[in-house]
């Protein structure tokens, strides 16, 4: 755990790439981007070919899987927004526009790896394998997170931002002490990088050399406050150097680039090279939640600019041009997306029916005398109401 050992690790991995430790930790000169906005492949020279920052194209099968999850993610986002408008969900922070980041964050992981999401990362949670209705439980006004984190290796979606990054650090630390090679992807947004726990989590992960990927979706706004008012840093990915870890910037609307960057990050982390910080440039195309009015803080022209960079149409265009997305394949994906959307509609159209007595059940492993008294009090009150 000494500083010396820490430098050794960075220098050995950089040696492997034939670059200096500084060049290993510093993000590539350009944001990693493999697909143009129109879905065509970028020119070779721009395709993440800098020494130590090389990103070969993911395989067609990998891309098809990722696209399928992407299309499902988009459908789920839009279905949930509709359910909120219909009054069937209490609130939904949509990741519409950020689905490529969502999908990559989960697909780069093995089943035994852990994901630490925020409330906007429902599509990542879904992609990690959590059942659709379980993912959305908290947004229908339930008091619990809806799923068993240990069954999916997926933490509850965190509302106090960046607090969960430290939990990810802890999960990785416990695994490391037991000699397991679990990797953790811990997610937050650009605004959350202002939080103290962001700093503490990155620092702890680097000091203890833990396999954690800090994945920042820079969607340009923290509700209404633009990144320029969060940080004077020209790049969030470059913060990595300050902690002694490697950083990278990636086009967050380019699923191909995201898959390449995240898979490499996971591999490096799993090989024992410590944590990495990945900044994905993306855009929250819709308001913060249904309760927000984004017209108060941004121009429609800006939104339109980003709609032109949509991650779903971009990937669709590439796969279509490459002849990978046959009509049959597309039909299958649509069918899958619709089936999940229907599951959500059917589920949300049924009222949550949690017995109020359960409110007292999970405060502690077993109820205290005082909680039992209060539970009885409520039961008595309800019994009298019914009588």
């Amino acid at each position: 755990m000494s500083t010396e050992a820490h430098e050794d690790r960075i220098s050995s991995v950089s040696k492997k790439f034939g670059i200096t430790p500084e060049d290993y930790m510093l993000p590539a000169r350009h944001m990693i981007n493999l697909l143009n906005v129109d879905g065509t492949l970028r020119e070779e020279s721009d395709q993440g070919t800098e020494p130590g920052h090389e990103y070969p194209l993911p395989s067609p099968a990998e891309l098809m899987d990722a696209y399928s999850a992407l299309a499902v993610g988009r459908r789920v986002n839009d279905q949930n927004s509709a359910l909120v408008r219909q009054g069937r969900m209490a609130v939904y922070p949509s990741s519409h526009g950020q689905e490529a980041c969502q999908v990559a964050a989960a697909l780069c992981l093995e089943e035994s790896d852990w994901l630490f999401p925020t409330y906007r990362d429902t599509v990542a949670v879904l992609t990690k394998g959590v059942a659709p209705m379980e993912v959305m439980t908290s947004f229908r006004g339930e008091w619990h997170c809806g799923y068993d984190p240990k069954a999916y290796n997926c933490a509850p979606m965190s509302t106090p931002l960046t607090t969960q990054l430290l939990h990810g650090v802890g999960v990785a630390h416990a695994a490391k002490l037991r000699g397991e090679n679990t990797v953790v992807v811990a997610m937050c947004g650009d605004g959350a990088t202002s939080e103290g726990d962001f700093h503490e989590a990155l620092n702890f992960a680097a000091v203890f050399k833990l396999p954690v990927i800090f994945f920042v979706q820079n969607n340009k706004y923290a509700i209404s406050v633009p990144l320029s008012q969060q940080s004077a840093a020209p790049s969030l990915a470059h913060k990595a150097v300050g902690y002694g870890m490697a950083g990278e910037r990636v086009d967050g609307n380019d699923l191909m680039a995201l898959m390449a960057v995240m898979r490499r990050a996971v591999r490096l982390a799993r090989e024992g090279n410590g944590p990495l910080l990945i900044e994905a440039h993306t855009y929250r195309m819709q308001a913060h939640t249904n309760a927000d009015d984004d017209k108060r803080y941004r121009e429609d022209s800006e939104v339109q600019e980003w709609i032109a960079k949509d991650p779903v149409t971009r990937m669709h265009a590439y796969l279509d041009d490459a002849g990978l997305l046959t009509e049959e394949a597309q039909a299958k994906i649509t069918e899958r997306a619709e089936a999940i959307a229907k599951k959500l509609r059917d589920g949300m159209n049924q009222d949550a029916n949690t017995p109020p007595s359960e409110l007292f059940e999970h405060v502690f492993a077993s109820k205290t005398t005082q909680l039992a008294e209060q539970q009885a009090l409520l039961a008595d009150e309800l019994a009298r109401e019914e009588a």
Partner: protein
Amino acid sequence: MTATTSHVNPNVSDATARAAAKAATQNQPVTFGKALNTALADALVANDSTVIFGEDVGTLGGVFRITDGLTARFGSERCFDTPLAESGIVGMAIGMAMNGMRPVIEMQFDAFAYPAFEQIASHVAKMHNRTRGKVDLPMVIRIPYAGGVGGVEHHCDSSEAYYAHTPGLKVFTPATVKDAYLMLREAIDSPDPVIFFEPKKLYWSKEQVDLQVLASDYEAKRAATTEGAARIARAGSDATLITYGPSVSTAMEAAKLAAEEGISLEVIDIRTIVPFDDETVCASVRKTGRAIVVAEAQGFVSVASEIVARVQERCFHSLAAPVLRVTGFDIPYPAPTLEKYNLPSAERILDAVDQLQWEA
């Protein structure tokens, strides 16, 4: 944050460590600090998933030497230093507890735990509940607290009310050497997160306790449970002093002085603020008919206020006088030269006893 700790006389703990080592061989009295240290060591032996970490707890053995020798004995994977960041320490412990470990972490001083408050209130306290009971957080946050040791500012807070007020946290505070051992073992074995408040001024207090016997009693489940089980520290019949942690010894002193004047005071050490033992407390008050709550923390919206409320709700018809409080004043904890004016004293407790509407 360690810059000012030398004020708490580190030489005392060195001397105590030497004395404790001697005690182990000669069956001499052991200190409160040694009991905690032994409990930690025994918990590391008992369960491979127990890990200890915090600021200066490794090589140094903690500023109060409570983790003394643990890194040397168990290795730096079981007891280690962290960067200086309390939210980070608690946050990382949460993740480790989620993933099968039993972290026992140290906040160096009461007031230095405040940066971790969000992690404690929003996650430590709620993880079990928001996962509908699927995720336990078996972790202990040790906090040296309260004054009486000449500590400078930010080193002497009695912060127990913040944690006791937060549903989902258990709050323990031992007052005897024996309890220091037993309660820490129980806290570490609890499936629930425990905030473990250690009264600083008791670290060097001594008792004739055979820790080996205590350990084997605990492990064989022969020792009585302390959680939610208040202790009658002194039996009496005229009035009840309800207290905990650093104030227990003060209440005992007051009871001794009162006895000399022919007043028999019962002293109840509640041991665990959460869960609270209403039964033992109320049985005593129903018997004596008079009660005073003694606590070092400032009195306004305090644990003492809560105990008064509970007692009058449950024992109203047994009471011969209003339930009184002797607490610290509602002021920031005073400088070392002035702390004696703030701390509840035996004299102040006896003054309160005088006000319990005794019949002439």
